């Protein structure tokens, strides 16, 4: 069975991504807590239902929610701080997720041309999602 080779010990790409997965996972949990508590602080407790609150605090962008009722909370979020927070969340989320897909590809694909193809596809997906997210966040 030709599964993936053992990564060499020391300072390698696999090691960097291993560290990054842990750090970005912790950062995502932290930013989710910050977003949720700030949403509640700005008055979401009496004005939003739970699902809207979760959607809104992860990605406070009016194009993200169409039918949910978001009343007077919008002005408090329309500043550069939350745009930067959104960009960091999207960067960490997309990179963490695409790296997870890459690990699954490395686990199940032998060293065939399919793996090379899928690696390229994942890289393009990563670039594409991040560019689209930057565009959506910054052009509101």
């Amino acid at each position, binding site marked *: 069975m*030709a599964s993936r080779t053992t990564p060499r010990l020391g300072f390698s790409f696999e090691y960097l991504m291993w560290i990054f997965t*842990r750090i970005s996972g912790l950062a995502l949990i932290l930013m*989710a807590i910050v977003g949720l508590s700030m949403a509640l602080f700005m008055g979401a407790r009496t004005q939003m239902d*739970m*699902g809207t609150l979760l959607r809104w605090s992860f990605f406070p962008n009016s194009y993200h929610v*169409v039918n949910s009722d978001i009343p007077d909370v919008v002005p408090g979020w329309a500043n550069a701080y939350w745009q930067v927070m959104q960009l960091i969340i*999207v960067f960490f989320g997309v990179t963490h997720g695409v790296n997870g897909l890459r690990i699954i590809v490395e686990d199940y694909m032998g060293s065939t041309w399919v793996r090379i193809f899928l690696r390229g596809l994942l890289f393009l997906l990563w670039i594409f999602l991040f560019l*689209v997210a930057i*565009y959506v966040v910054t052009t509101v």
Partner: protein
Amino acid sequence: MVLKRNVGLSGLKYRGGGPMLAWSLHRISGITLISLLSLHVLSSFFQHQLGNDLATNINIIYESIYVQVFIVFVVIFHGLNGLRIIILDTFPKLIEYQREVIWLQWLAFIPIYGLTVFVMVTRAFGGN
């Protein structure tokens, strides 16, 4: 090539228990999360650019209470299980107790998820 391996139903007989369930759920929920994230980014982009029925319909689908209950399960499980992995990796001596840690993890998961779903469902169907 690995893909030609045919495991079939005999894979179900592998008695990995709690750690195996956590591992496979972590992987499945991870794939689900990156798919949902891509869907959200794309639907926001379509809403921004086109604002047509396609964009609105994608938004309606993931704003419905049924999808939300599923997403909350996936997010909370992936987060808690990731925390467990980080803690066990940082303190490798704890790996000896990993089955007990997984029981603890479910013990933390049930109230967090249960309360969230309780609030969501009562708000959604209670007319308030």
